[in-house]
């Protein structure tokens, strides 16, 4: 938290950040969005947050200007990908790594690649492909955030994209269907498990990865591990049990969670979380457009078969 002073002296342009929706247990259910949110929480002071940066929570990919999450809009430029967003935030004065040496910065960028290589795909598989988790947990995340026809569309789109990413990245000849998505998943999960063990080895007995001060390294690791720790998945929960057995990493997660999100309860969610009943249905203009179009189509169909004429008579 060394950079508070640095940031406030500069004049920053207003930034907008588009992140994937969260729920009452995590600020975002997308690991990369969670990383950026955590980074902001740890660099900005609470009251500053709304002035400096406008954060838009949404799960509709068409509302994000680039179609992906997270996306940062700063000075009319779009930044996607955790590395480039953090780079831009650093330029804007929100630097968590001011105390890090070059060697340490190099290590952070290596671990950033390591995490997205090993854990990102494994989480994509667990959340969006694995059948039981997908129907029981992931569906619940979206049902509170948007309404029916969009839920289905977004779910199936994410499912398809996740499958594509997993299939192309696996070592088997997946483009020719010699290995199935389940086989790829098993391979990814064992790699992810190994990665978690390696992270535990790297952390050792320290509080954070670089001793007692926070860095973006911690934020990157937190983004993935918190999502694993917070949700007890009904289907495959291989990573969750592995993480639970590593006390130091679990403590590390809950420590950062308390620091960044004091308002969020730390509790395991077993099945679909009970969402707040405040339905966004009526506030959502797209919903009404949808209803309108459906109505017009219905009437048009009715006219075609002559139903309306009969009714009018």
């Amino acid at each position, binding site marked *: 938290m060394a950079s508070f002073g640095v940031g406030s002296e500069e004049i920053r342009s207003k930034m907008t950040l588009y992140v994937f929706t969260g729920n009452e247990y995590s600020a975002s259910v997308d690991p990369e969005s969670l990383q950026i949110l955590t980074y902001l929480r740890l660099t900005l002071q609470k009251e500053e947050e709304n002035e400096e940066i406008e954060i838009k929570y949404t799960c509709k990919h068409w509302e994000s200007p680039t179609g992906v999450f997270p996306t940062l809009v700063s000075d009319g430029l779009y930044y996607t990908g955790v590395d480039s967003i953090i780079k831009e935030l650093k330029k804007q004065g929100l630097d968590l790594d001011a105390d890090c040496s070059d060697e340490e910065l190099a290590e952070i960028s290596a671990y950033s690649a390591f995490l997205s290589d090993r854990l990102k795909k494994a989480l994509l598989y667990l959340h969006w492909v694995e059948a039981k988790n997908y129907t029981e947990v992931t569906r619940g995340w979206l049902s509170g955030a948007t309404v029916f026809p969009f839920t289905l569309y977004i779910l199936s789109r994410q499912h398809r994209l996740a499958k594509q990413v997993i299939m192309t990245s696996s070592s088997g*000849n997946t483009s*020719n*269907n*010699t290995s199935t998505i389940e086989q790829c998943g098993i391979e990814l999960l064992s790699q992810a498990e190994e990665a978690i063990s390696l992270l535990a080895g790297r952390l050792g007995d320290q509080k954070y990865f670089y001793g007692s001060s926070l860095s973006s390294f911690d934020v990157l690791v937190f983004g993935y591990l918190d999502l694993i720790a917070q949700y007890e998945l009904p289907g495959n929960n291989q990573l969750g049990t592995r993480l639970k057995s590593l006390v130091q990493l679990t403590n590390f997660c809950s420590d950062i969670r308390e620091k960044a999100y004091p308002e969020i309860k730390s509790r395991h969610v077993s099945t679909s979380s009970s969402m707040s009943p405040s339905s966004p249905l009526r506030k959502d203009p797209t919903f009404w457009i949808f209803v309108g179009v459906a109505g017009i189509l219905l009437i048009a169909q009715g006219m075609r078969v002559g139903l309306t004429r009969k009714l009018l008579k």
Partner: protein
Amino acid sequence: MEEGNFMRITNAKVKVCKVQVLGLNRTKNDIVTEQVKDVLKSENLLELVANSLESVDRLKSLNAFKEVNLEFGACRNKMGKIDGTAVTFRVKENGLIASSISANAGTQSGDANLSFSLRNIFGRAEQLKVVSTTAFPQWGQTIQLELTKPYYKDITRQFCAGLGTTNFKQPPCGYQENIYEQKVQMQCFSRLGHHTFGWFCDWRELFGFDNGVPMSIRKDAGHSLKSSLKHVLVTDNRDDPLLPSEGYLTKLTHEVAGLGGDICFSKAEVQTQMFKEIFPEWVLGLSFWGGLLKPFSPSKINDRFLLGGSTTLRGFEMWGVGPHRHGYSYGGEAYWATGLHLFLPLPFTSGEFFRRIRFHGFLTAGNLNELCSLSSFLNLLKETRLSGGFGMHCRLGIAQIELNYAIPLRAQSHDRLKPGLQFGIGLDML
């Protein structure tokens, strides 16, 4: 007396003065005229009836009409006097679009067939057909588009052009193949039988080998282009194409590849079947298959012959006979196989459906080998594989289904055997 009357009537002079076909809508006149013109030549009543009935058959075989009805009437001249006979064909045209779905399923394999065709598109019995076949579990998929057209207005001579794509797995050899095929072919009848001449151009891609497949099979991976001329002659004088009891069927195939493309070979194959009814409804069937491949460049695994399985040598695994490399079929350049069947009817049953199901006992023998020297040619006879068994045989349309209990009687050590129950489905069966 009666006989004399009949003779007198059939020999009675007839003058056909008018033939009309009613109900034509899309169909062009010239092609219909060609089918019915013989009626006009009839001179007596017998000829008139025979010619008319043949014309009805020929009209039906155009595949353009749902119904063809025949009417005879009197033809009057301007004065109102009866002048001769008028023959009227009342036809109902088929709709332009036809589609069908069919499925075959079994314990080991099955396929679903979806076809969609445009009949009689330009009014001269042309047909455009799209067929999609999916075989499962995950064995392959085929999509074919075919345009056929009779030439010289004669329905027995057909011109056919087609495009197709097939992708399938060949687990016994451990590879997958994608084929994009084009063909142009002509069909006609001669005294010898039904000929098909054609040019076939296949773009093949071998890929997706299993992890254990040895290098000698892997080396054929990648793209290849086969451009070949093919002649198929089918001679059929069986008494019944579905359930034959007498007669024989011979299919001779010659293929020469190497007109462009990178595959050069010459291939000849013969398939023949003979049937003989020894007791009422006890049918003895003897079949012989043989093939020879002469490659002019190193032959590829997808060009070589494969033998074994429920449709050829029963009692062996699919393609389980002949040269193998680390448990994967390698194929060979020469093969022969022969089968002797005795078909018995099901007892205590009657009716058309049960007639299609028969018991059979069989003996099959054959061999497949690579041709590298004279001794390997002699080995074809020496190392004969033999198997025998019994089971049920069912004829469904053009496909045959068998459920057999088969035991291999003679085999080589590298063959893959499958003694016991075996289910087979196929168009051509040994």
